[in-house]
């Protein structure tokens, strides 16, 4: 009995952390290139409604995920044109994108509010899923959960082991230096921003097609903002994003378990609800307290427009 409770907490933790990981890792790439896009909430909302609508009409959740991704790309393209080509303020444009996405998705989603999708069944990995306690939690999950792990591995390799990752980081550090040795700063920033949008769209698709298979206005409920905050608190390092997302999911799930149990713990539920935020911030701040590593990992040019000189 004890192990099955642990197993189900672990299972729920991974599910709750997955959209945060996908969205935050996408944002991490954009931010590493020096682009701060605060529009994640809006891009997720658009991804969620696009994925929901396409899944409903086609009956194929994968087409839905693709549509969600494209919606995220389209949203981030608007943002990229404004801040990279027109040199708009990144913070203001990102906030506007968030508001636009949440509002537009509500408008587009009106006719879909009464619809429901069938649940997509999990993918069970033979043998591994039979492991005690962790087996079911780790290896009997939705495909996008495995995708989030692959994304993480790919990102670590890309950022720290590939030449392209080095170029990306260089652009985030010093766009003028990167430009002067011949790298197309704006083009690479476009690609990084669009990648961030694609991941936000997939994160939204995970919510509306896999996590809670329904569409309702405002269903993203702040997860886009949490993802953005995670990137900062994780000091732009993929592994810490992973830790932060699971910590957040884990504490949220654990506090629900504590509430539902007959344990005599007298903590106001408002405080319990704030606990995931508190715990994540505290832990990430502690592991990132070394100022040198923070300076080493924070992209210097983050949020600053770059105008290539001729």
């Amino acid at each position: 009995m004890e192990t099955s409770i642990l197993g189900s907490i672990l299972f729920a933790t991974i599910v709750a952390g997955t959209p945060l990981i996908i969205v935050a890792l996408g944002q991490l790439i954009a931010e590493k290139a020096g682009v701060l896009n605060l529009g994640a909430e809006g891009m997720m909302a658009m991804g969620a409604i696009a994925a929901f609508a396409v899944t409903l009409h086609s009956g194929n959740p994968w087409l839905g995920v693709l549509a969600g991704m494209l919606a995220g790309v389209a949203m981030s393209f608007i943002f990229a044109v404004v801040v990279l080509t027109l040199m708009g303020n990144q913070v203001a444009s990102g906030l506007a994108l968030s508001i636009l996405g949440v509002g537009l998705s509500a408008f587009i989603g009106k006719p879909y509010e009464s619809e429901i999708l069938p649940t997509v069944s999990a993918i069970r990995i033979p043998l591994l899923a039979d492991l005690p306690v962790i087996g079911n939690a780790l290896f009997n999950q939705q495909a996008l959960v495995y995708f989030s792990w692959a994304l993480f591995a790919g990102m670590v390799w890309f950022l720290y082991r590939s030449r392209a990752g080095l170029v990306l980081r260089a652009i985030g550090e010093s766009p003028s230096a990167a430009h002067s040795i011949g790298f197309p700063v704006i083009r690479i920033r476009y690609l990084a921003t669009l990648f961030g949008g694609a991941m936000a769209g997939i994160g939204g698709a995970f919510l509306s097609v896999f996590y809670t298979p329904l569409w309702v206005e405002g269903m993203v409920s702040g997860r886009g903002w949490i993802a953005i905050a995670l990137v900062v608190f994780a000091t732009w390092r993929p592994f810490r994003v992973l830790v932060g997302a699971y910590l957040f999911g884990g504490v949220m799930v654990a506090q629900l378990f504590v509430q539902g149990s007959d344990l005599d713990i007298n903590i106001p539920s408002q405080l319990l609800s704030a606990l995931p935020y508190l715990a994540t911030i505290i832990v990430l701040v502690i592991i990132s307290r070394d100022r040198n590593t923070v300076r080493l990992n924070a992209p210097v040019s983050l949020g600053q427009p770059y105008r290539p000189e001729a």
Partner: protein
Amino acid sequence: MRFTKITIRKLALVLLAGALSGTSFAADNVGFVYVSPIGDAGWTYQHNLGRLQLEKETGVTTSYVENVAEGADAERVIREMAKRGDKVIFATSFGYMNYMLKVSKSFPQTAFVHVTGYKMGKNMGLVNARFYEGRYLTGVIAGEMTQSNVLGYVAAFPIPEVLQGINAFIKGARSVNPKAELRVIWVNSWYDPGKERQAAMTLISQGADMVTHHTDSTAVVQAAEEEGVYAFGYHSDMSKYGPRAHLTATTHHWGDYYVQTVKEVQAGSWTPSSVWGGYPRGMIKLAPLNDAIPAELQARIHDLEKQLTERKLHPFAGPVIDQAGKTIVPAGKNMSDDELNKMNYYLQGVVSKIPN
């Protein structure tokens, strides 16, 4: 660039003109202020059904503004409605109370009605429904049908209205099954489908085979459908979100009250009143019972409904015993409305601890 700016300005003007032309109203218009989008089920959806019934039965024109935040926006919206000459204005969320009271003082000729509040004015009445009556009945069904004797409840905020529902549910369940226990999870949000679902999943993994919720989405019913347990909807009939799992739902019906109020205003006989209606006024009903409920139990539920309608059954009839074993209401007495409105404890049978 200049060109773009001008076009955008023009576009804005056109949009504004469109919005203004959309807000021209007939003289005896009735205004509704909604706290959330109408959607397809839930609190605001039920109020909107009431508005449609009002239009159909009285022929008045109505208008509504949805998704109005419980703040300064609410005052602006209510004031606009009063200014343009709406005869009656219904504000359908608790947080509108003070704003409506303020506006009502500037428009003495307009009838204001606030839903779920406690402040009245010279031209402002109150209405609320005894949601707990439906909760009691669903508790009876849960108590009879549970195999595990564990029931689950996903709740928003620990305010008296929500606690009345929780306590009525366990009291109903315990009236037929003294072994039934209730686990409660607070999500501290009226509306977060992801979290509501997570809470339902948690309750189910802790053994609950009957779950219900006092939040606004349908996520709990859907979670129950997936996990193969039973659920009770709230606000609206949510059976299409869980055709197998959804046993019934406590549903709200505001239409009759709206019709009566508007007719009184038209006849000039309206005076502000405080209405707290339930089964006797038809403001609370159960959604159609699922065939999974045995016929014998269905008959008993219908009988209990009849008793509620005839005021022969009070869900909080004594003895009412709280979680600690203290008697709140002795046998032979019913809990008073005043006591109901101050409820801040769990009754016997709830195993979770109250969160403050």
